[in-house]
């Protein structure tokens, strides 16, 4: 049974995936964490499911290559079932994607995830009614606490085995626009003879939306005739609605979504807590920057203090072990040298690397999961413009402090190719955790923490200069920032633990053995 998890960015697809598959897919509280598909076979109640976690996508109208990739893979790989993961507290905004998925005629389940968050905001959802309107099963989950996940897969199974009457209803647009869609659909049925994976209504909608990808497919098949008809109907639609053809249907879906939202949601009084008030300070024009600087200074300072304390403690332990071995064996003998270098390799990992790496990764995970990074992007937008980028580019850069590989991959959240290239170059110049260890372990250890900090400051200057040079070489104007700012979330203990381990594992299984072998051969 092949199941695809799809949904908008930051809806919790990966959290849901991880709660059944173990920690395999990176999660965080920022849009666009998942950059490639993660697959896993899982066994739930004795049934084996093959689950594919998709990168988040706002809609099936691709605005960049990554989204086009998601759409094509989704349509062409014939899933037994699609699970549409929705952030329950953002249901109105999420339903347009559901409406698009319904056009694809796959078996579909809607999952309202983060149901507790919606309740906290005072949003009460009548799931029965939603299911009735859409004609497909609706389930609720709190994936981070593993609530409702088992029930979800039981429904999934019964849907795949056709024990469940889940057939998506045809949800129509307003009459005038609907007539245009139908006209094109019928026209395609008559004139577009090529075999295609796409349902004709879906194809008609995408063509009317002026989607370059589908326009190209169709015109390469049947030539000018269809393109002409599409252009004619697009004009008709523009006249009907007074909007550009590419936004008529998207706004139509949005209107339908809001209509459904109004029917199934009752908004009570939200429990106001620290989250709403926090942004008044965190995004404040003065305090915001003070907080940003303090967070960064505190972040590195705590890692240094904690790390060096543990390092000294552990190193003295290894020194005692060394001395003890020297007293037991002939200090100039081969056996002693062999054992000693082996211990150095191990102590290097345990005493010098891990004391800094572990607090560093935990800190970074907490910053990510709370949802602080989009706020940093907001605050830094104006400064990033100075080097020819915009605020969103800071997110891959900050992730680079953990590891440069996911940082480069995270540039997918940027919209233009030029921004992606510049950000990818910049992100690779950020001192990653392994390089930070050298800075902490050597520079801070021998010269003092201020020198270590100075290296980071120097690094920022080098990066700013590089950015400036690159953007002068590529003078194209980038469209600017459009970024969702998610609400704060308390990071869950288990997720932080698993994610830190997920990242440390790479050091332990790859870098550490190399360290041991090298220290052995140098000796």
């Amino acid at each position, binding site marked *: 049974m092949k199941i695809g998890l799809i949904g908008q960015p930051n809806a919790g697809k990966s959290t849901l995936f991880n709660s059944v598959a173990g920690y395999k897919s990176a999660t965080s509280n920022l849009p666009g964490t998942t950059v490639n598909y993660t697959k896993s076979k899982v066994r739930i109640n004795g049934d084996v499911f093959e689950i594919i976690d998709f990168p988040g996508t706002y809609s099936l109208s691709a*605005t960049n290559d990554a989204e086009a990739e998601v759409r094509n893979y989704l349509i062409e790989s014939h899933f037994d079932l699609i699970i549409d993961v929705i952030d329950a507290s*953002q249901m109105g905004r999420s339903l347009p994607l559901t409406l698009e998925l319904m056009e694809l005629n796959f078996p579909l389940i809607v999952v309202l995830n983060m149901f507790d968050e919606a309740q906290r905001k005072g949003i009460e959802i009548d799931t029965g009614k939603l299911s009735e309107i859409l004609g497909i099963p609706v389930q609720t989950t709190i994936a981070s606490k593993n609530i409702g996940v088992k029930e979800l897969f039981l429904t999934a199974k019964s849907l795949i085995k056709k024990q469940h009457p889940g057939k998506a209803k045809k949800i129509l647009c307003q009459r005038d626009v609907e007539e245009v869609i139908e006209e094109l659909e019928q026209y395609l049925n008559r004139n577009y003879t090529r075999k295609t994976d796409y349902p004709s209504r879906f194809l008609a909608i995408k063509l009317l939306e002026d989607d370059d990808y589908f326009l190209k497919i169709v015109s390469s098949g049947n030539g000018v005739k269809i393109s002409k008809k599409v252009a004619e109907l697009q004009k008709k639609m523009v006249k009907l609605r007074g909007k550009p053809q590419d936004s008529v249907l998207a706004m139509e879906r*949005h209107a339908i*979504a809001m209509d459904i939202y109004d029917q199934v949601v009752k908004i009570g009084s939200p429990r106001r807590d620290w989250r709403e008030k926090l942004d008044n300070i965190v995004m404040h024009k003065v305090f915001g920057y003070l907080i940003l600087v303090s967070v960064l200074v505190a972040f590195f300072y705590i890692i240094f203090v904690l790390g060096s304390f543990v390092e000294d403690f552990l190193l003295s332990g290894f020194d005692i072990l060394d001395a003890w071995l020297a007293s037991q064996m002939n200090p100039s003998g081969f056996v002693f040298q062999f054992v000693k270098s082996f211990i150095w390799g191990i102590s290097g990992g345990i005493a010098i690397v891990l004391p800094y790496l572990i607090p560093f990764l935990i800190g970074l995970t907490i910053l990510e999961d709370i949802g602080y990074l989009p706020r940093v992007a907001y605050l830094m937008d104006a400064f990033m413009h100075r080097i020819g980028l915009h*605020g969103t580019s800071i997110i891959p850069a900050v992730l680079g402090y953990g590891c440069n590989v996911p940082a480069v991959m995270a540039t997918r959240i940027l919209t233009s190719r030029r921004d992606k290239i510049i950000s990818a170059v910049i992100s690779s110049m950020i001192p990653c955790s392994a390089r930070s260890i050298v800075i902490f372990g050597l520079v801070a250890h021998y010269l003092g923490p201020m020198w270590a900090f100075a290296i980071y400051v120097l690094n920022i200057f080098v990066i700013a200069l590089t950015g400036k040079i690159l953007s002068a070489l590529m003078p194209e104007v980038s469209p*600017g920032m*459009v970024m969702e700012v998610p609400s704060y979330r308390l990071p869950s203990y288990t997720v932080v633990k698993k994610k830190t381990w997920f990242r440390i594992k790479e050091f332990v299984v790859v870098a550490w053995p190399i360290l041991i072998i090298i220290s052995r051969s140098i000796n």
Partner: protein
Amino acid sequence: MILKAWDKSMNFAEEKPLKSLIKIRPRKSAKIIRIAGGKNARLILGQLGIGVGSEVKVLRNAPFAGPILLENSGTSVAIGRGIAAKIIVEEI
């Protein structure tokens, strides 16, 4: 003084003037009339449910000509000044 007040009330009676989104002060709402940006900008905004006819609330303006934070049907969205300048709205 009286003239000014009269002038103001006349303006109010007429159709409200269109302005760019960056001219809207925080905590005020506005209805989007036109998006003068390219197709891609419209698509990206449309994915977040922001399009012609949407009513949005400006939450805050970042300093140093930074982005604008909007609220649109319960979601906060940060929009860079370049794009925001091309969004033509009517204050409500």
